[in-house]
């Protein structure tokens, strides 16, 4: 084995891999507040960031954690914060600010059981709808759900790219199992990294209109504080030059633009993985840690001759609905095992519109599905 190969692999926890993925993407700022099961991300950043000249700050709460991340991003940083359910609830206020004011940042929620303090050390997927609708108002989230340690690393890089490209916060909804399990991963070599940086204005400072979007992308170029452009950032609805407005056409233009910039690029964003779909009469849809058990169950069922496939959304938002529909035409039953009381199963129902029977499987006792739990249901419906 060549030396390079050894250097480019690591045996890491999901949380550690996620932090290193962020660093590989050029993250140079972290602000946050400790909370199980996400703390290793903050701890890794506290250790690694100053080595690269980046900054780490432990704030007084999660609200401040995201606030300082957004402040740093406005000053030009690529910034990260990480938390779990109780902290994710606190971050909703400033997430809304970031959607409206169009500030790039990556926000990680390593999900644990809730509501409230709930089950601090056990896995859940109960925040997945909060990722979609958590802060008030209308917006279009981009949200990933990793199901392996390698994916924690890779999706951290991708999340930064998407945050920079679309000028908005991007969410990574990991979970306690993915965050804490250890696997061997391959790091991306620096010269192989494909990094996207926010588009910056090229006009003269006097001509800068901070929210005038590129018509091809609907994303306005973003200046950084300190680089010569004077501009106003606000959580109020504004017109193109940042002036607060209540004028209906201006309001509508802005709100539709911040949604359309994502929906028009949907096909570039949406990711999924489909396996064993050939001839499948049953499809299991699962994501995050659950996908690991589900895929095993699907393989076991195939060995027994049951034609069952597996569909794993990697982007939870936007949801790969059209792709799922296309791949499950003629499928009798879709099973949706989740560590919640049926959140994504609602989304699958919405996509499938009665074309197949959709059956949710809920597990909310803090444990992960065993492959045999899922296999049993596959056999029942086969």
């Amino acid at each position, binding site marked *: 084995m060549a030396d390079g190969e050894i250097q480019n692999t690591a045996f890491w926890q999901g949380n550690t891999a996620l932090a290193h993925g962020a660093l590989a993407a050029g993250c*140079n*700022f972290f*602000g946050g507040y400790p909370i199980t099961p996400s703390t290793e991300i903050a701890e890794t950043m506290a*250790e690694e960031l*100053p*080595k690269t*000249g980046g*900054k780490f*700050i432990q*704030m*007084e*709460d999660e*609200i*401040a954690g995201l*606030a*300082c*991340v*957004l*402040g*740093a*991003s*406005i*000053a*030009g*940083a690529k*910034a990260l914060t990480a938390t779990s359910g109780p902290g994710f609830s606190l971050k909703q*206020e*400033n997430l809304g*600010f970031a959607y409206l004011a169009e500030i790039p940042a990556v926000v990680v929620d390593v999900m644990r059981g809730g509501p409230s303090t709930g089950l601090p050390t056990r896995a859940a997927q109960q925040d997945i709808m909060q990722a979609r609708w958590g802060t008030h108002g209308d917006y279009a989230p981009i949200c990933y759900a990793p199901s392996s340690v390698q994916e924690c690393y890779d999706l951290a890089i991708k999340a930064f790219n998407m945050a920079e490209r679309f000028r908005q916060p991007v969410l990574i909804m990991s979970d306690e199992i993915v965050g804490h399990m250890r696997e061997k991963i391959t790091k991306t070599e620096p010269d192989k990294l494909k990094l996207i940086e926010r588009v910056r204005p090229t006009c003269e*400072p006097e001509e800068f209109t901070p929210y005038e979007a590129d018509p091809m992308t609907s994303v306005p170029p973003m200046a950084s*504080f*300190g*680089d*010569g*452009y*004077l*501009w*106003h*950032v*606000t*959580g*109020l609805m504004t017109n193109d*030059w940042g*002036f*607060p407005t209540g004028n209906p056409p201006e309001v509508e233009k802005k709100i539709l633009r911040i949604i359309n910039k994502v929906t028009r690029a949907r096909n570039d964003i949406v990711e999924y993985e489909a396996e064993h779909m050939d001839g499948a009469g049953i499809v299991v849809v699962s994501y995050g840690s659950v996908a690991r058990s589900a895929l095993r169950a699907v393989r076991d069922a195939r060995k027994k001759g049951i034609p069952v496939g597996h569909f794993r959304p990697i982007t939870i938002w936007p949801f790969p609905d059209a792709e799922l529909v296309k791949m499950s035409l003629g499928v009798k039953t879709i099973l949706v095992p989740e560590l919640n009381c049926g959140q994504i199963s609602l989304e699958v129902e919405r996509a499938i519109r009665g074309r197949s029977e959709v059956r949710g499987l809920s597990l909310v006792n803090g444990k992960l599905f065993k492959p045999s739990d899922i296999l049993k249901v596959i056999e029942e419906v086969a």
Partner: protein
Amino acid sequence: MPGGKVLSWLRTRFMPHIWCSGCGHGIVMHALLRALIGLNKDKTRTVLASGIGCSSRLAGYVNACTLHTTHGRSLAFATGVKLHKPELTVIDIMGDGDCSAIGGNHFIHACRRNIDITAIVMNNNIYGMTGGQSSPTTPVGAWATTTPYGAVDQPFDLCKLAEGAGASYVARTTIANPRQVETFIMNGIQKKGFAVIEVVTHCHTQYGRKNDRRLPFDNYNCFKEASVPLTKARDMPPEELEGKLVCGEFVNKEVLEYTEQYDKVIEKAQAALKE
């Protein structure tokens, strides 16, 4: 009408402003702009953060790098700006409610960290923007829409709060002394560390209407009469200081500044890498 230099710092395009005519907030804005001009500040390297409230709208009217955040959170945003780019001058504008109610936690921690930000708290003893509800600085017995029988909870002394939490510069003055507002803001900006300037101002529309200070001038006179310089207050018995506004620089000390401390963290981490 302000003169040429001050005018160049104003976003006249954002005007008319939302403030009621006669609101004390404009006096603070003018003093702040004079201070920035006096210190020869560059607009492209000056950041004004603010929260939510009438006072916080100030940021939008200034032609600089301005950041109008969420209610109470501006200091946390400003901390991110300053830590990422310590070379920028960062000023944070808050109302009394913004700073000491919803933003109280961020306020004490910014003081404790002693990060080089100048916080200007425009204290009008009320929530002006939302129509005159009581704030953490509404005096006991005062009338507000949410204290229809008179306020009963004890108010904060913002300067004592800032001092106790560790700020390296703490001063109070009132809009009845605009020169002093300007001087204290200048001193605060020049201080390497977290500076708090409480400017007692008025909301004649909401607070004044309910508390016998209906006209801007009533408030101005009231502040003039109640102001006592710190040097004089030191020799006065507590009974005589009842209801007075002690004005002056309460704290002006050298404390290790946060972004400089963090630079040392970077040095240590990088030195360990070389070993």
